[in-house]
């Protein structure tokens, strides 16, 4: 069978110590649930000789607040807990949906919010064994110097494959980080970078400690995920929508797409026509029809990328309709075609 590399397993007693261990040990990686990390290690996708456990550390599992005051979710919360947490049943529902759609029940019992926010961007030239990657010719994300998806590209096009990341962007959440230089909070939209290798601005020694969801008034949210099977699969498209309401009219709309770029792709600007409107079938369809513009899937995930591009409009419409309390499948782009 595929074996893990020989590893040292470090168990810090505090977040401070975890950061210090990371700072002093350049070949170390943090591990929480390990559901993304371990299979990647077996395929030698990282050169790691030590793992720093974040499990059982104080301050990573707390949940505090509500939609009125804002909600702080410790990064160690498991995806399964969040999928069914009452605090995420209302305004922040998209986050519960996204967590509940990650992989399998077994992975959701182990996987954490922090780990999902940091899912290593995926590519079907990269998430392969060492010998497969050697046979095809290594890519720049590991052991090589070109991008096999776009050979003339100077950058890596691995795909942001987190379900929670686009939701964090759509909900205008902030990510709390703790490193040897102190603590900081950064808006989710600014945390992610459009690069398959340097996909966040997290420093090596920084631990994500929490996700802060802002206080909101009347807010609805929805997350739609496209994948081949209703279990196991990473997203090949994610649509996260958050709508703030005033008296039945949309005050502001935010949105982000997952798995169509190397970072969550914000579509908030394309949702602007919804502002001040009481949405109906036509308006939603019009907005969705235009909002797929920044979706640029490449041929490096499951299924045909032209099809994934075409699905973007359909899924934006469905997510918007759901957030508006309308039957998601009945929209103009989604209605069944005439025979």
């Amino acid at each position, binding site marked *: 069978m595929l*074996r893990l590399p020989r590893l040292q397993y470090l168990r810090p007693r505090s977040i401070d110590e975890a950061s210090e261990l990371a700072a002093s040990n350049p070949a170390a990686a943090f591990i929480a649930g390990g559901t993304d990390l371990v299979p990647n290690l077996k395929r030698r996708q990282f050169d790691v000789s030590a793992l720093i456990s974040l499990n059982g550390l104080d301050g990573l599992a707390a949940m505090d607040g509500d939609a009125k005051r804002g909600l702080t979710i410790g990064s160690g919360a498991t995806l399964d807990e969040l999928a069914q947490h009452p605090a995420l049943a209302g305004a922040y529902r998209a986050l519960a949906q996204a967590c509940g759609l990650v992989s399998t029940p077994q992975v959701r019992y182990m996987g954490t919010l922090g780990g999902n926010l940091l899912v290593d961007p995926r590519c079907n030239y990269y998430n392969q064994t060492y010998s497969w990657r050697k046979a095809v010719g290594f890519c720049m994300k590991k052991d090589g110097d070109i991008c096999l998806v776009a050979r003339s590209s100077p950058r890596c096009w691995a795909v942001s494959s987190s379900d929670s990341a686009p939701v964090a962007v759509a909900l205008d959440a902030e990510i709390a980080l703790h490193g040897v230089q102190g603590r900081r909070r950064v808006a989710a939209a600014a945390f992610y970078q459009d690069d398959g290798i340097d996909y966040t601005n997290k420093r090596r020694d920084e631990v994500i400690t929490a996700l802060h969801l802002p206080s909101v008034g009347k807010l609805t949210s929805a997350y739609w995920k496209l994948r*081949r099977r209703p279990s*196991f699969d990473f997203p090949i498209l994610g649509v996260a929508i958050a709508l703030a309401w005033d008296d039945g009219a949309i005050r502001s709309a935010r949105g982000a797409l997952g798995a169509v770029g190397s970072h969550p792709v914000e579509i908030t600007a394309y949702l602007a026509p919804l502002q001040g409107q009481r949405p109906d079938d036509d308006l939603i369809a019009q907005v969705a029809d235009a909002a797929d513009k920044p979706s640029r899937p490449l041929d490096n995930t499951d299924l045909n990328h032209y099809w994934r591009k*075409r699905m973007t409009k359909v899924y934006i419409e469905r997510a918007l309709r759901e957030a508006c309390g309308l039957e998601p499948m009945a929209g103009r782009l989604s209605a069944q075609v005439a025979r």
Partner: protein
Amino acid sequence: MADEFAIVGKSLTKPDAFAKVSGQTKFADDLALPRMVYGRILRSPHPHARILSVDTARARALPGVLAVLTGDDLPIKFGILPVSQDEEALAREKVRYVGDPIAAVAASDEWIADEALDLIEVEFKELPYYMSIEDAIAGGAEPIHGRSNVHKAVALEFGDTEAAIEAAAYRREDLVFFEGNTHLPMEQHAAVAQYGADGKLTLWTSSQTPHYVHRALGKVLELPMSRIRVIATPNGGGFGGKSDIFSHELVAAKLAIVTGRPVKITLTREEVFYAHRGRHPVLMKVRTGFSADGRITGMQFQSFLDGGGYGSYGVATTYYTGALQATTYSIPRYRFEGVRLFTNKPPCGPKRGHGTPQPRFALEIHLDKAAEALGLDPVEIRRRNLVVPDSRTVNWLRITSCGLEECISKVVEGSRFLERRRQMPLGRGLGFAVSSYLTGAGTAIYWNDMPHSEVQLKLDRNGGVALFCGAIDIGQGSDHILAAIVAEVLGVELEDIQLTTADTDLTPIDLGSYSSRVTFMAGNAAKAAAENVRERLFRVAAAALHCDSDDLVARGRRIFRRTRPEEGLSVAQAIQLAEAENGVVTGTGSYTPPRLAGPYKGSGVGPSPAYSYSAAVVEVDCDAKTGEVRVPEVWIAHDIGRAINPVLVEGQVEGSVYMALGEALMEEQSFRLGLHKFPSLLEYKSPTALEAPVMHTYLVETIDREGPFGAKEAGQGPLLPVIPAVANAVYNALGVRIDEVPITPDKVLKALHDKQKRVGPTSVPAFQFPPLIKSDVPDEWRGK
């Protein structure tokens, strides 16, 4: 009827069930022998290349490495079929697919073994490579084997098809493609080899065919077979993928001999994709003439098989793509042309249905289209063409029992197919198809006159029965079937039977768990062995009871008089009497299929002592904006002959449905840059439990006159009708024809926007088939 049998026909728990669910079963990879070391195999990174040199010096020098092998250590070629001895345990001159084995190491642990592989330096000269049927036919400077990429081409004709089709009231031709897919067993292949101080080699292996592995080991290692013992370990899924001889089995054996240490090789999941032997991609053209009332007048069928890098079972597969068209429908004139091409992909071989799901897919779509053109419903056109029991097909296949008509009625009525298919809202649809399959191949893989299955029984004086048989249970429940048959005949309980199976030192021959043969053939052998020994028990019992042995019945661990049931003795007492009279109480039985081959070259593939029949209705729910297809419900009926254990049969039927849905909707062997695109369980998409539909399973019993208690096969046949039924249902739902599998959402969407409302092949490559071998038609077809 309830009392006709004590055990046969009852849904009892199979003997290995508790060990499996409680984790006690020892699979090959669970074996750990003292001083055992680990083998790993270096595989080709190129789809087609000449090996210029292999330098193993650095690997040998690595501490912890015990041995390094290259092709020159195992130079004798082998292959599962005598006509295709084209494989090497480790490639010597050329590699023919990414994953082709080149060298192997034995090391004290897997980390060192992996490191050693990376230290082996191989110099290649890369060659142009062929990744499709079209590329292979077009050819190039260096073919994959020999002088051409054509592995096997066949052309058979039974009567004048051209005249029969030309004279028909309605003719149609369809082109259909079936993409390749793989078995995806849960258990990866594994083998452990030990070479004893006595000069004897033992190989424990996850195999469906230990007898053939035994033969190949003898050949390649140049050891007498008497010094080799092959034990097939409990099998975590085969589906045809473990019925070949594999490099890692030969390599583990050689490494054990060279190192003097037990050696284990467990393939990684990626390597299982390279070992493959899965479903051949097949491009097909079918042309048929119909009378105005929908009766087939003649058929011409062409198939182009993408075989991958080696022969494997491919010659048989090629014939199978043309063999079973006529076992469901009366086809008065029939022509089959088939060609298998070598390509630079992992070798294809037998997967559940071996070479017949592809033509069945084509045929059932073709008939659906013909029905519509002729104004018939999909059920009626099939009913008008059904074969009848106790008949012979135009290509000389003998049909005995046939419950196809009843299978059709079950699913059509169960699903209310005829009413509901016209009332479905857009996006919902029902599809229908039928099929048949072999109950064991009528001929052995290597030519011989000996039995195909043998069973030996040894009765214990306390009433226990030791059963020895070469058959290996691959999850289908063959252990239960053997035990149930023997227990039924001897009147003992299932728990009285001790099974020893698939151990070439201890068990008599069974050719293997392939071609759906074990229940029928090993079952008949077991029945014969048990009847043989029962005769002896009845003789001593009759003497003790002062009655005629014809008056005796064995049941409930007793042998008693049918006419006076209170007069009897226990089975144990009867055994003791027999043992006192004549020593150890043993019995043997064997089964040799009748000679069924027709009078033409190529007639060895297709004949079977009995055919199973299946019919399916599939309901689909399609999203017309995304092209996604879901299957909420399936109705499937299967003519099993007799269900020796109904719950096992239902398990096989439902497992077949599930596997078929994977092939219909998502599974495919995809390649890019010469490599398998995603050799992993996550990215090779196969359905999960969440996609399993509601299944309505109907067992139809036709009590086959040659099957053990009338039984036929269940392991493969029920897969066949489901795949075309999905395609036919998509047409019913959306009005689009997807004439290829898998039916992925992008294809459905493309077809919805296509003028012809179709996605599928539009041509077949120009290829000169060999001259037709023109066979006589059987008497009953003359003049028809």
